[in-house]
């Protein structure tokens, strides 16, 4: 069920690493819990943050969720398609509905994140 090509956080985000750049989004579970997403506030490219910083928000009709940065680094790209079409977060959270990309400043931070098996367990198997 949980794709094993990426890592996961307790806040139900995923990060997929390619050439030192992590693509970040929310998991299927998070998208389902949020309900219909109607507004996404993304960070600015070029800005630098530390691991765990709040870098944006995802809002559904009823709820507001913070976007956390799973690893320290610089925001190098944001998904403009999601800003214009927030429902992508619901329809395809693991692919087309990615949120932003970060250039990792400390790849060892990845070790603190969950792999697919651990995240699957968090979801209750």
């Amino acid at each position: 069920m949980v794709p094993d090509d990426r890592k996961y956080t307790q806040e139900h985000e995923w990060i997929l690493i390619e050439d030192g750049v992590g693509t970040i989004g929310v998991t299927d579970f998070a998208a389902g819990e949020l309900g219909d997403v109607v507004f996404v506030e993304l960070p600015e490219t070029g800005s630098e943050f530390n691991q765990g910083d709040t870098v944006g928000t995802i809002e559904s009709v009823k709820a507001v969720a913070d976007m956390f940065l799973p690893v320290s680094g610089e925001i190098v790209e944001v998904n403009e398609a999601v800003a214009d079409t927030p429902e992508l977060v619901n329809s395809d959270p693991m692919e087309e509905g990615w949120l932003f990309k970060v250039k990792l400043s400390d790849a060892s931070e990845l070790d603190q994140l969950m792999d697919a098996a651990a995240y699957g367990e968090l979801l209750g198997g």
Partner: protein
Amino acid sequence: MSESTNLKSTPLTDWHKQHGGKMVPFAGFEMPVQYEGVLAEHACVREKVGLFDITHMGEIFVSGPGAEAWIDGLVTNRVTGIPTGKIVYNAMCREDGGVLDDMLVYRLGEIEWLIVCNASNHAKISGWLEKNLPADGVDLDDRSDKTALIAVQGPDSRELLCRLEALADKVPDVESLKFYTALTLEGPAGRWIVSRTGYTGEHGYELYVPNEDAVAIWEELLVRGEDLGVAPIGLAARDTLRFEVCYCLYGHELEEDISPLEAGIGWAVKLKKENFVGREALVRQKADGVPRRIVCLEITGRGIARQGARVLREGRDVGLVTSGTFSPSLKKPLAMALVDSAISEGDLAVDIRGRQIECRIISFPFMSARTKGDPRSERTLP
């Protein structure tokens, strides 16, 4: 999960759970907040027809020769002299004019009445009624635990309701039932009240039925309405639907420290009535000028202002958002706010998590209701 064990259920709770209802605690009940998704459910009611389980509402029956005058003395609108079958929207106020609750008052007969209050205020209103009960001439019968309430709302609600087997010989009466009137009939397990009321801004009905009849009605409506696209609707969409047509919600636009004149329901306050609890305070407030008022805001910057967000005019606090969300029909962030009456134009902003986001006052309501007349009439949009 010990909390959920104390939550009340409705006759439809099991049905909701078995059909994908996402259950949440609401006013002491375990209620469905959504099924398919709030946007789809919202659209279903605006365009077709939806079913709501709103059994959590309180139903207090009042009877006796003194009931008419007694109720009239406790509510802001006029209920004396209304014909049997008529329904009146009211606020019930404290002496200082603060709103205890808003409610519907039904005249069911010469000396029989029904008060329908919010679930969140049910205990408070029960207590208030008991406290104000005269020595004789008025009897209270709180039937909330025995009464299920199903709302059928949307442009196809009349068509759907008339397909109910139990209403077969009442079709002409249901078809001609006017807004804010009700009819009664004997259902399988007891009396049904069919009420042309609702909380969506669409043509719609609310059915008060004995608990025993609820599941059969719900399932029959879903089967008979399949071609109409009927669907169950959760509380989240109930909120966005009422929000777009600017119906007050207690705990948001209405509170004990908000007067009905401030909340914008002055049309339901009859200050010419000889007396009712809160009248003096409200007469005084009207003479002195109502200090605050509910306004409609369009958030023109990027963001969604939620309840509690500060409203600022040129940097100064002028009020608070009472309800705010992304409007599914108008597809933009909107809010209702309680602000100083003096403000009108000027640079307005809402504080969204520490950032001042531009907004502007727009005309009330966001969308016009289609509760009367043609259920598919063109809407007036701001």
